[in-house]
């Protein structure tokens, strides 16, 4: 069975900023509302796609250095932007799709710090238009 193993080369860009070197995890949820379309005469339930309702959760180290995590995210809270997650650094292709979320909204910017550990920021972008760039 073919699987994908994510070791060190995924690419994560937020608002066109490449934050791959600060990112430790990405969870992409591509969802569509499931609308019931069953009618008389049907013997099984049927559904059609409704509105897209996507989200991307990204885990970063909380770097406050110039042009790093904090500088990228601090002005995006309460606004919409673009997020791209790609399996590897290679060009977009069917086997290396750029999962692109255009106009996705960042509602919160939680910073987690604890004694003796690197600070982290885990952000979730909601909504926006999803496309898979494969060329």
């Amino acid at each position, binding site marked *: 069975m073919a699987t994908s193993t994510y070791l060190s080369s995924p690419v994560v860009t937020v608002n066109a900023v490449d934050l791959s070197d600060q990112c430790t995890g990405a969870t992409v949820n591509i969802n569509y509302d499931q609308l019931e379309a069953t009618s008389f005469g049907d013997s099984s339930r049927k559904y059609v796609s409704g509105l897209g309702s996507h989200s991307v959760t990204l885990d970063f180290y909380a770097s406050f250095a110039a042009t790093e995590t904090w*500088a990228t995210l601090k002005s995006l809270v309460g606004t919409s932007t673009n997020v791209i997650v790609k399996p590897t650094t290679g060009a977009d292709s069917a086997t290396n799709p750029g999962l692109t979320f255009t106009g996705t909204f960042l509602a919160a910017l939680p910073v987690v710090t604890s004694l003796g550990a690197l600070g982290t920021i885990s952000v979730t972008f909601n909504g926006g238009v999803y496309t898979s760039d494969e060329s």
Partner: protein
Amino acid sequence: MSFVIASEKIGKIGELYEPKAGINVGALLAGGFIVEQEVSTTEEEKSAKPKYKKAPKE
């Protein structure tokens, strides 16, 4: 108004940056990733060379 890349996080430093649809340009400016480059809208002034008259031949 045009923008110039100031951080290698978004491209080659010094090159012009053209934001794609959906990009929050204000956040990029605030974070120091790009800087504004003002484009002059006035024509360059011609150099004020003094005109000399040819001396009459004797």
